[in-house]
Structure formats: C-alpha cells, structure tokens
C-alpha cells in the first residue's frame, strides 16, 4: 500500500445545533479512488470542505498528505484540486479563459500540464471559444474537472461531480476518473448514486453525518447478512405488498420491475414462495437467487443504524 494520503480521526462538525458530521474516522491510501456514497444531508459536502481547508472542524484531527487542515491550510491549497458540488466556473468567460485563469492563479500554464488534461480537455477543446454558461451539463463537468486538474494536484476532491448529469456523461466521467487514478492521483469523490460505488476502489457509505461502513465494494457485498431473492410477477407494487406480508421476510424493496426480497438464510424456500404467489393470483412469477447490490447493503445498514 502507498502511504496515507488522507487521515481523519474522530472528526465532528457542528453547525449551530445540527451535527453535520458525527465522529467519523477513516484513511485513504495514496493513489486510491475513494468514494463517499450517501444521500443529501449525509455530510459529504461538509467533509470535503473540511479536507479542502474551507471549514474548520469542531473536533478531531484531519490530515491531507501529512498536512494539518487547520494549521497548514496554505500548503494544502497548493496541492489539492477541488470541484465543488455546484457548477462553479465563470459563466461569462469562455472555456479557454476559465482554464487559463485557473492555471495562472496556481502559477502554471495550460501548456505546462496539457498532458494531464489532454484526455478530458480534448473533448471540449472544439468549443474553447464558447462561454462556459452555454455548455451542456456534461461539457460543463468536463471543463470543471479540467480546471481542477490544471495545476497537477496530488489529490483531487470531487463533490458530487455526477449529480444531475445524464447516464451517458456519468459513465464517461467515471472512465476519466479511472484513467486519472491510474496516472497516480489520489481521488476522493462523493455521489448520491449507489450504482457508482462499484467504480471505486473503496467506499464509505454515509448517512446522517455518520459512516455506516467502509470497505471495497466487493467486501461490502460479501458482508451482506441476508439471503436475497429477486422476484418478478408483472406489476411490482401489488407484488411488493404481498411479499412484505410473507412470513420470514426481512425487507421487500422494488428494484425496477422486480422486488428484492431479503430474509434470514433458509427461512424462505423459493419453490414455496412461487406456489404462494400463484395462489394469491400473481402470474408469470419468476424467482431468482441473487447477490446483493450496494443499494441493498445501504438500505440494510440504514435500518440497522
């Protein structure tokens, strides 16, 4: 393992009366693509703002590349790249002007670090004379990432870069992040989309200011404590309601056209369930044993906590 890039110990952040971050601890290794997965209000943005020295923690110690976020904030500001949650570039400046502005304030030029951003910037370069405000969502996001990268940061903080972005742009964005990670940059990224967890090396599942679990996506899924069936039978809502009532059911959640039914291993037999559903008038019943997704794990952890 590479040395520790980010280390957070017993971090708490309080805004007036609300606890935005509630005693969390974790470490991110150098060169890792680390994801914070959780809904709005989980504390992801507050955490990123602390790590990028924009907020001072109420309690706890945070270090980025061995530097303290409170004491050594000036050095940290030189080595980290940050993409805030809201699109934060100058809408009235062109693509090129935005990029060169951010290059200059970090004391570099576009030419100097062009190799690093080439991959991403090449896609928007044909529009470099266009005002940033006139770009589509996916292009804005690429420009913002280019601006965050232009000073060759050692570590990148991306706060919900894919929120409100369509599925295609999201997929492309994650491909870009993987390539950057392979180039040696440590990346911390937050997202409310559960399905993006698998694209990270390790993830922290966050809810209401707490980290519910940290591990690789594969390990988190392996730790899922229940057995899981995917049940289909025409209309999902009547099916879900039926499954909720079925003895032995732990949870029944809709997943698209199917319902994920979780239960204690051995308590439900698929064949019996099939028979039961048929007698209740459900037709075309298909039952399949499946492994959990991160979303299943997340919901399970939410109910425990």
């Amino acid at each position, binding site marked *: 393992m590479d040395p520790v890039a980010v280390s957070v110990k017993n971090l708490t952040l309080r805004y007036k009366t609300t606890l935005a971050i509630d005693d969390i601890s974790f470490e991110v290794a150098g060169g890792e693509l680390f994801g914070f997965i959780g809904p709005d209000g989980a504390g992801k943005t507050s955490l990123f703002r602390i790590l990028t020295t924009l907020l001072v923690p109420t309690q706890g110690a945070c270090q980025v590349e061995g530097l303290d976020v409170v004491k050594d904030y000036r050095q940290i500001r030189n080595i980290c790249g940050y993409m805030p949650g809201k699109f934060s570039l100058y809408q009235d400046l062109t693509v090129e002007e935005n990029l060169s502005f951010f290059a200059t304030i970090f004391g570099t030029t576009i030419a100097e670090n062009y190799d690093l951003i080439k991959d991403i910037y090449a896609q928007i370069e044909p529009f470099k004379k266009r005002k940033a405000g006139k770009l589509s969502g*996916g292009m804005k996001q690429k420009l913002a990432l280019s601006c965050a990268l232009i000073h060759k940061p050692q570590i990148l903080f991306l706060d919900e870069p894919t*929120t409100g972005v369509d599925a295609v742009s999201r*997929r492309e964005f994650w491909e870009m992040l993987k390539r950057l990670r392979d180039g040696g940059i440590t990346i911390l990224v937050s997202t409310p989309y559960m399905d993006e967890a698998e694209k990270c090396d390790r993830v922290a599942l966050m809810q209401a200011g707490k980290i519910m679990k940290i591990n690789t996506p594969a390990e988190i899924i392996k730790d899922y404590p229940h057995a899981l069936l995917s049940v289909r039978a025409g209309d999902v809502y009547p099916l879900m309601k039926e499954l909720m009532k079925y003895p032995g059911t732990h949870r029944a959640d*809709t997943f*698209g056209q199917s319902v994920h039914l979780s239960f204690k291993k051995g308590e439900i037999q698929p064949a019996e369930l099939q028979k039961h559903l048929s007698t209740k008038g459900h037709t075309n019943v298909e039952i399949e044993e499946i492994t959990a997704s991160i*979303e299943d794990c997340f919901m399970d952890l939410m109910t425990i906590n």
Partner: protein
Amino acid sequence: MAVSSENIIIVKDLVKKFGSFVANDHLTFEVRKGEIFGFLGANGAGKTTAIKILCGLWYPTSGELNVAGYNIYTQREKVKQNIGYMSQKFSLYDDLTVFENIRFYGGIYGLRKKEISERSKSLMERLDLSAARDKLIRDIPLGWKQKLAFSVAMLHNPKIVFLDEPTGGVDPITRRQFWNLIYEAAHGGTTVFVTTHYMDESEYCDRVSIMVDGRIAALDTPEKLKFQFNASTMDDVFIQLARGK
C-alpha cells in the same frame, strides 16, 4: 392497473425553436389517463423545454397540444388549474412552516378554507407529518420535504402531475417511499409525468420516452424497450440511444 385508454395529453408535431436552435423537433406522443409516464433524456436533449410547454409556461413554436382536455394555446389558465407541478428545487418555501406551505398552495388554487384544513390534516396524517405541522420547512429532513412537496402538488386533485427529477439526492429508502406515493397517485387516477436520472426508476413507469437531440428516439414500456435494444437494464437502453446518435 388504472391506466385507461383515454388520452390525457396529446402532443402532435410540437416544435420549439430558440432562434436557429431547435429544442423540440416535431414531438408526437400521447399520455393515457392514470399512466406513469417516464420522460427521459440526456442533459440538453429538450426535456425541460417540453415540460415547460406542457405546463403552459411557454408557447410552442408550432404543433397541436391538448393537456387535461384543454388547448394549450387558448385555455392556458384551465390547463394550469388541472395540473400539479413539483421540481427538485423550488417547490416549498423554506421559511414557512409545513402547514403554511399547504395553506398557501391551497389558497392559490382557490380551495376553500374548510377544504384546506381537511385536506392538510389528512395529508399530514398520511405522511406522518402531524407532529411537524408548525416546523419550518428548512428544519425538516430532505426526504420529508420531497414527500410533502409531492402531496402539495396533488392538493387540488389535479388530473396530471408533472415531477421534474423529484428524487435527486434522496436516500434509497425514501426514494422507494416516494415512488410508492407516485404509484398510489396513479392508482387513484392521476396521470404522472416524471423525469429522472435514476435509470432503475424508469422501470417503475408504465411507459418511457427517451429524448435525444430534441427528438423522441424511443417510446414504449420498459420491458419492450429492453427487448428491442437487447439490453438487460434501462441504463443500457439509454446509453445505446444516447451514444448512437
């Protein structure tokens, strides 16, 4: 299912141009009464424009449109009286309480005082919000806000409710509870017109349309779309369509 054969939204050759840019390029589709209609598309594909036209906020450049039985050109006020609208962002006033928000929306839709108090009471009971009646919106959790915003959009019993990315940023459990509300509304006969970036949610819809570059590139049930594109998830369908332009 409560979907009837009656069409509640009829769109024929809808065109909307901004200068030389064509945001909506001859859209033609119908939405049936009681249907959950998913309206998907990449950023900038023209979804928002179409929704604004359907809600009577903008005039189209050309095309025939009938929403909730009324002509969009000549009966805009009637259209607005019969639709509800909820977007992720600006649906409720942060500095008003739960009840004040309900009362305000009831008021602007011309509900009588008695109707407002009856409906708000049953609504708050249904959403488990009775205890939070006098709390400011900014002080209640996001999940509650979204459920409340939806119920407020339904307060005047509209024929159609438009939901623009209603579940953005919500945790997975609340997201499912929210869809439960949508499902119940549709079951009660309200037509639901919804946009989302969560592709798994599109599978809860009765039918889904996918817009690419101002046109409707596909429109069918999620099942049939997946079959047609030989894909296992709607995510794949969407990506094939958006990339194959």
